[in-house]
C-alpha cells in the first residue's frame, strides 16, 4: 500500500531539504514532495516516509542515497537559448566589454559559470554564444563551468546528447551547425563546444562551493533561486558577489531578483532584461 505522508514526516523532510539544499517545499507543494519521494520509498521497501527520512539523513552511506534522491527533487527541465533577451545582452554588451577589459589587463582568459546547470543546456548555450561572437582570439582561453547538485543531470551534461525537446527555442541553423543527429533520435553536440565546458558537482546552499573555482567574470544562475528560501537566497547572493571579479556580471531568471536580500551587486536594466554587476571598487 502507498502510505500517506504524515504532518510530522512532511515537516521533517521539508525542513531538512531547506536546511541542507535550500530547497523549499511549502505546504502547497506537500503532495508534490510526497509524489517525488515515493519512488525511493518504494525501491527501498520502507513502509513509511519516516523510515526513508531517517535513512537519507543518518545512514552511514547516506551520500549515495542522496545522489539517487536529488534527481527526483529538482527540476532538470531546460532547453537551449532559454530567455533569449539575456543571451542577447550577454553577447552584445557583456562579452565585448569583457574582452576590452581583459585585454587591457593582459589576462587572456574568460571565466563563466552556469550555476544550477542541470543537463548542460544553459552552459552549452553560453559556449555557443561565445563561439558565435567571434570576439576572442584563438590564444585566449574561454573557460565555462557548469555546476549542479544532481549527479545524474551532470552525467547527461557531460554526454552532450539531447532530445528534440531541448531545441524548442533554438534557431534551426544553430542546431544544424553545432549538433549531429543520431540513430536513436538524439542530437549530439560537437566536440569543439563540448570541450569548452567542464561540469562539477556543487551545492549552492553549502557555503563552500566557490572554493574550487577561480574568480569569475560572469555567472548565470537562472530559475534556481525560485526553489530557495530567503535565508539561502541571501547566502547565495553573497557568495555570487564574492565569486565575481570586480566588474563581473550576474544573470538571474526573468522572475527572480535580489530585491529582498542585502547585496552589494548593482542592478543593470536593459530592454526585456535585468542583470547585476559587481562594482569595480567595493571599498574593501
Amino acid at each position, binding site marked *: 500500500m502507498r502510505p500517506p505522508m504524515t504532518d*510530522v514526516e512532511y515537516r521533517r523532510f521539508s525542513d531538512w531539504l531547506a536546511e541542507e539544499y535550500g530547497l523549499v517545499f511549502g505546504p502547497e507543494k506537500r503532495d508534490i514532495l510526497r509524489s517525488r519521494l515515493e519512488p525511493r520509498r518504494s525501491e527501498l521497501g520502507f513502509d513509511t516516509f519516516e523510515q526513508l527520512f531517517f535513512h537519507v539523513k543518518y545512514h552511514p552511506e547516506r551520500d549515495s542515497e542522496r545522489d539517487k534522491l536529488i534527481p527526483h527533487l529538482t*527540476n532538470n527541465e531546460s532547453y537551449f537559448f532559454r530567455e533569449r533577451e539575456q543571451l542577447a545582452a550577454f553577447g552584445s554588451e557583456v562579452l565585448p566589454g569583457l574582452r576590452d577589459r581583459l585585454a587591457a589587463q593582459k589576462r587572456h582568459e574568460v571565466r563563466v559559470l552556469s550555476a544550477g546547470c542541470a543537463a548542460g543546456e544553459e552552459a552549452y548555450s553560453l559556449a555557443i554564444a561565445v563561439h558565435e561572437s567571434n570576439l576572442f582570439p584563438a590564444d585566449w582561453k574561454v573557460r565555462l563551468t557548469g555546476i549542479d547538485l544532481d549527479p545524474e543531470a551532470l552525467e547527461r551534461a557531460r554526454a552532450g546528447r539531447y532530445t528534440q525537446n531541448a531545441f524548442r527555442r533554438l534557431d534551426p541553423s544553430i542546431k544544424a551547425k553545432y549538433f549531429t543527429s543520431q540513430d536513436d533520435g538524439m542530437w549530439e553536440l560537437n566536440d569543439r563546444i563540448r570541450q569548452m565546458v567542464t561540469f562539477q558537482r556543487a551545492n549552492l546552499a553549502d557555503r563552500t562551493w566557490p572554493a574550487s573555482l577561480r574568480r569569475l567574470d560572469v555567472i548565470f544562475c537562472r530559475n534556481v533561486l525560485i526553489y530557495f528560501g530567503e535565508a539561502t537566497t541571501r547566502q547565495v547572493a553573497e557568495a555570487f558577489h564574492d565569486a565575481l571579479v570586480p566588474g563581473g556580471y550576474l544573470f538571474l531568471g526573468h522572475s527572480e531578483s535580489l530585491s529582498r536580500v542585502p547585496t552589494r551587486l548593482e542592478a543593470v536594466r536593459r530592454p526585456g532584461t535585468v542583470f547585476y554587476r559587481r562594482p569595480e571598487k567595493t571599498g574593501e
Partner: protein
Amino acid sequence: MLPGYPSSHRNSVSESAIDRFIEAAEPGALEAARGAISGGEAPQFAEGLLSELAGETTWRRERALERLARLEAGAALFPHLRDAIRDGRQPRRRNAARSALARLAAPDALTRDAGLETLAQLARRTPDADVRLLATTALGESGNGRARETLEQALSDPEPNVAAAAAEALGILGDGRAVPALAVSTRSDPIWVRTAAALALGRIGDPRGLPALDAAMREPMLAGAAATAVGEIGDPAGIDILRPALEADGEARIAALRSVGQIYGGNPDLPVPDWLRTTVGRADRHLLSRVLRDHDPTSARLLGIAATPEAAAALARALEDPDTQAVAAIGIQELPVEQRRSLVLERLPGADRATRTALLNLLPALNTPESIRTIIDHLGDEADEARAAAAEVFGRSDPDLVLPALADALDRPELRVGVTVALGRLGSERCPPLTGLLDDSDPLVRAAAADGLARCGTGEVDQLVGRLSREDDTQVRQSIIGALGDIGAPQAVQSLAETLRDPSPSVRFAAARALGRTRAIDALEPLLGALADRASEVRIAALSALGELGDARAAPILARHLRQPDRETRRTAASAISHLSDASTVDRLTGALSDPDREVRLTAVETLRRVGGSAAEAALERRAENEADADVRKAVSRAVVDVRERRDPQQG
C-alpha cells in the same frame, strides 16, 4: 528622500548610528544603537529608524526590524513611536511606526511586555479610529499570543475597520480559543467585518468554526470567503457545506472548487460522491489551464475528481512532461479505479523511465490475466524504481490471483530479482518460496527475500538467523537484520545484539534500528551500549531505537541527550522521548520547549499535546507567550486547545 519626509528628521550622528545598526555585523550594530539611545539621541535614532522602515529598500527594512527585536534599549523608543503613530500628517511614517511597534511586541523581542502594553493601550483607549486600526493590525503582526484578549475586545470596536482588522489579526495568531468570538463576528455588520471573520476562521483552521461558516455560506456576498475558509480548515465535513455553492453558478463556485481540492488533499481516502464528480466536471477547461500554466496541484486533483474523458487524457499527457509530472500524478490518483487502471495500462508501452515509474505507482490492483502479464514484464524493468513500483502493484493485488503467475516467472532469470521483491510484497502466508530464495546465488535475490520475509510473521526467524551467520555480503546482512527487527522474536535479539559488533557501520546502524523495532525487553542493554559506538550515525540510530523500544527505563538517558550541544542528537532524543509518553515526560520535555532548534520544540509540543494533563497544559501556555516561530506558535495553540478539550470536553 521620501516624499513628505523632511531631511531635518535625520542628523549626522544618528544617521551614522542607524546605518551601522543596519549594515554592521550584529554586535556592532546593537552597540551603535545602544550608544545613540543612551547618549540622549533616542528621538533622532527613532526618526532615522522610521525613515528606513518607510524606505523602499526591502532588505534594509527587514534587517532593521530583525535587529530591533534584539535591542533591549528599544524601550526608550516607545514614546517617540507612540507619537509617530498618532501623527496623521505623514502616513508612511505612522505605518513605519506601526511596523516598529509590532516587532518590539513580538514574543522573541526583548521589549515584548512593554511593546504589547503600548499597543494594547493604543488599540483600546485612543479616540482616533485610525490609530486604533494601526495598533490592532500591529498586534496581529506581532504574532504575540497574549494579544488575543485585546483583539477579541476589538471585534466589538464601533469602527468597522478596526473590528475587521481585529478579526484578521486573530487569524494570524491562529489561536483556536478565538473561534467563538469570531463566530459571533460572522454575523456582525457591515459585510467586510463578516468577511474578515470568516477568513480568520479558515486561517485558524479549527473545525469548530464550521457551523458559523455553514451559516455564512447562505449569504451570497459572504459565500466566497466562507468557502475559502472551509477549504483551509480542511475537514471532510466541509464538503457538504460547500455543495450549494458548487451546484450554483455564483461567484463562490471557484472558491468552493479550490476548497474541495484542499479537503481531498488532506484526506486522500475520502470517497468522492457522484454529485461532486458531476459538478466539478463542469470546470474542466479552467482547471486544465491552471495545471499546465501554474503546475497547481489543487487544480490537478480537481481534474481527477471531475474524471471526464478530456480531463483524464489531459492528465495523462501532463504526466509525460517532466515539468508537470508530479502534479499530474496527483490528479490521476483521484480518477475512479477502473478509469485509472485503463489509463495506466494504455500509456505504459513506450513510456520513458520516469513516466513508467509514475504510471506504475498509480496503477490500482491487477484484476485480469492480461494486466498481470503486462506488469510481470516490468519486474525486469531496467530502471530499479520502475521495477520496485511494479512489485508494489502485486502487493496491492489479490495474492491468489497473482501468485501462480509470479511463481512461474521465477524461472525467468531477468525477472528473478523483481519477482522476489513482488513475492515479498504479498504479505503473510505467502512466504514459502522466499525461504528457499534466502540461499540464492544472487545477493540481490537474497536481500529481497529477506526483506519479504519480514512481512511474514515469526515463522522464519531460524532461517534468517542461520543465513545471517553465513552471510558475507554487507547489503544482504542489512536486509536480514532489518527483517529480524521487524519480526522481533526473542531469539532474534541475541543475534542482532551480536551484529552491533560488526566492522561495518552500516550493519551496526541497521542492527541498532532493528533492535528498537523488536520492542523486546532484553534489547535495552545492547542499545545503551551502542550509545557509545565510535560512529556517530550508529549512536543516533541507537538513540532513536531506544524510543521505539518503548522501555521507560531509557527515559532519563534520553533526557540527558536533550542537553547535548549537537542539534541532531537533541532532535533525535526529543523524538525518541515522544514514544515514552508518561507522567514524567512533561518534566523531561519542559526544557526542550525553549530549545533553540524549532524541530526540537515542535517535537516537544507534539509530545506534550499527546501526554496531556494540567502540567503539560501549563508548560504549553507558558511557551505560547514566548514563541516567535509562527509554525511552533500555531502548534502550541492547537496543543493547548486539545489538552483542554480532553481535560474537560464540555468547555471545548
